C-alpha cells in the first residue's frame, strides 16, 4: 500500500469515526431509551471489571511506593512518600492505567461482540425487526463505558492508595491516620477534578472505538479478531492523546 493510499485510508477512517460519533450524539438524546440494556452494560462494563481494575490499582500503588522509596530515602524525604504516591496515582497513573486496562478488557470485548454480531448478520436482523441496533447496541455501551470508567478509576485510586499505605509499612512505620492526613493534605481539587473529568473522555473513547470497530467489522471471523485488536490499539492511543490534551488544558487553566 502506497503512502498516499495509507494517508487516504487514515482520513477515511477518521471521517468515519467522526461520523459515527456524530451519530451517537444524534441518537442518544432521542427516545426510545434502552434503560434495561444500559443497566446490563453498566453491570458488565463496570462491576465485572472491578476485580481486574482493583487488582491493577493495588499492585500499582504498592509497586510505585516501593520503587519511589529508595530515591526519597536517599534525599532524606521519606516522609513525603504519601504525597508522591497520592499525587502520582490520582493525577496520572490511576486514570491512565485504569483506562488502559479497561480498554484491554472492555474495548476488545465490545469490538468482538459487535463484530461477531455484524458478521453473523444479527445487526441486520435487528434492523429488519424494527429495533434500532445503533441505539440498542452502541448508545448503551458508550454510555456505560463513559459513566463506569470514572467510578472504576475512583475505586482503583482508593485501592491503589491502600496499596501505597501497605508499601510504606513494609519497610517503615506509618499509621493509617497519618497516611490519610498526608494524602488529603497533598491532594487538592486541582488534582482530583481534572483527573476525574478526563476519565469520562477515556471511557467515551474506549466505548466509541470499540463499538465503531465492531459495528463496522468485515471479512468474517477474521474481521472479528481484527476489530477487537484494532479497538484496543486505537482506544489506547486515544487515551494517551486525550491525556495529553487534558494536561495542556489543565495547565492553561492554571490547575497544575
Amino acid at each position, binding site marked *: 500500500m502506497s503512502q498516499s493510499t495509507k494517508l487516504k485510508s487514515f482520513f477515511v477512517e477518521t471521517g468515519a469515526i467522526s461520523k459515527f460519533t456524530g451519530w451517537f450524539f444524534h441518537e442518544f438524546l432521542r427516545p426510545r431509551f434502552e434503560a434495561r440494556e444500559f*443497566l*446490563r452494560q*453498566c*453491570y458488565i462494563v*463496570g*462491576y465485572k471489571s*472491578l476485580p481486574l481494575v482493583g487488582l491493577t490499582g493495588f499492585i500499582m500503588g504498592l509497586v510505585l511506593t516501593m520503587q519511589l522509596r529508595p530515591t526519597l530515602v536517599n534525599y532524606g*524525604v521519606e516522609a513525603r512518600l504519601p504525597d508522591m504516591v497520592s499525587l502520582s496515582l490520582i493525577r496520572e497513573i490511576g486514570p491512565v492505567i485504569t483506562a488502559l486496562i479497561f480498554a484491554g478488557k472492555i474495548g476488545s470485548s465490545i469490538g468482538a461482540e459487535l463484530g461477531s454480531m455484524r458478521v453473523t448478520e444479527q445487526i441486520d436482523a435487528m434492523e429488519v425487526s424494527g429495533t434500532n441496533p445503533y441505539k440498542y447496541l452502541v448508545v448503551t455501551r458508550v454510555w456505560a463505558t463513559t459513566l463506569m470508567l*470514572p*467510578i*472504576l478509576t*475512583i*475505586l482503583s485510586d*482508593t485501592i491503589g492508595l491502600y496499596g501505597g499505605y501497605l508499601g510504606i509499612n513494609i519497610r517503615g512505620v506509618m499509621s493509617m491516620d497519618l497516611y490519610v492526613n498526608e494524602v*488529603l*493534605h497533598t*491532594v*487538592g*481539587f486541582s488534582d*482530583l*477534578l481534572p483527573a*476525574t473529568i478526563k476519565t469520562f473522555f477515556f471511557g467515551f473513547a474506549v466505548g466509541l472505538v470499540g463499538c465503531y470497530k465492531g459495528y463496522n467489522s468485515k471479512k468474517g471471523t477474521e474481521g472479528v479478531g481484527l476489530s477487537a485488536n484494532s479497538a484496543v490499539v486505537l482506544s489506547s492511543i486515544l487515551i494517551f492523546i486525550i491525556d495529553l490534551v487534558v494536561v495542556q488544558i489543565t495547565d492553561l487553566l492554571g490547575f497544575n
Partner: protein
Amino acid sequence: MAKQIINNIKLGIFVIAGLIILVTSLYMIGRNQSYFGNNITVRARFTNVMGLTKGNNVRFSGIQAGNVKSVHIVNDSVIEVAMLVEREFQPYIHKNAIVSIGNEGLMGNKVINISTNPIPAPAVENDDLLPVKKEVGTNEMLETLSTTNDNVAVISQDLKQTIKRLNNSAALWNLLNDTSISYNLKISLLNIRSAAVKVNQVATGLNTIVVDAHNGKGTVGTLLADTAVATDLKQAVNHINGASAEADAVIARLDSLIGGIQKDVNNGSGTVYTLLKDTATTNKLTNSLDNIEKGTAAFNEDMEALKHNFLTRRYFRKQEKAKKEAGK
C-alpha cells in the same frame, strides 16, 4: 429476572460506593483547604513573599489553621497576602499576632506562620491587618555563609602558616621532646593538688570561723554579735575622744607656756634664759656641781671609815649577812 435484579443491586452498590468515595474525597479536600469551613479573612503585608502562592498553608503556633486566599501587589514594595483562617482559631489569634513566611521542611512549600505575641491585645477580627516579621531567606543565609567561608579561608591560611612555623621551631620540638618537663609538670601538678587541699582546709577553717562569728562564737563573734561589747567599745571611744580633747587642752597650755618661755628667752629674762644663755650662772652651777661631787667623794670616804670603825663595823656585817640570806 431475579438474576437481573441481583445484578442491578450489585451495580447499584458499585456505583454508590464510587460516588461516596468521590464525594467524601472532595469534601475532605475542600475542608482541608478551608472551602467549606466557617472562616475569617486576615491580611498581612510583606515586601517579599518569597514564592508564596494561593493555597499555601497557614499555621497558628504550628497547627494547621487555614490557607492563603490571595496574594496581590499593593504597590512596588508592598505585597498583600489574604489568608482564610478557621473561625475556631479566632479567639486565640490576637491583633498583635506576628505573621511570617517560612518553609515546610528544608525543600517544602512556603507556609505562613502566625505566632502569638506575649503582649495582651484583643482577638483578631475579619479583614484585620496583622504585623509581619521578616524571616531570614535562603539568599541572606547564603550571603552570610559566603562571608563566613571567606573568613574561614583567611583563618585557615593563618593557621597553616602558624603550624608551619611551629613545625620549623627547634625550641618547641626540644621542649616537646624533653621528658623531664613532663616529670616536673607532674610534680608541679601534685604540688598544686596538695596546695589546693591545703587551701581547701584553710577555706574550711575560715568558713568555720565565719560561721562561728556569725553565730556569735569566739572573739570575733563576740565583737560582732555581743551588744555589750559594742556599748563598751562605744564608751571607750567616747573616753578616748574625751582624753584627746584633754590632751588638746594640755597641748594648748604647753604651747602657750613654751611661747612664754620663748618670749622670755628672746627678751633675755626668766629662769630658762638664765639656765640656757647666762654664762655666769652656768659657771656657778658648774662650781656647785664640782663641790657636790667632792662632797659626795668625801662622804663615801667617811662611810668607808665608818664601816671599819669598831663601833659601827658590827652593824655593817649584820647588813651584809642579811643581804646574802635574802639572795639565797
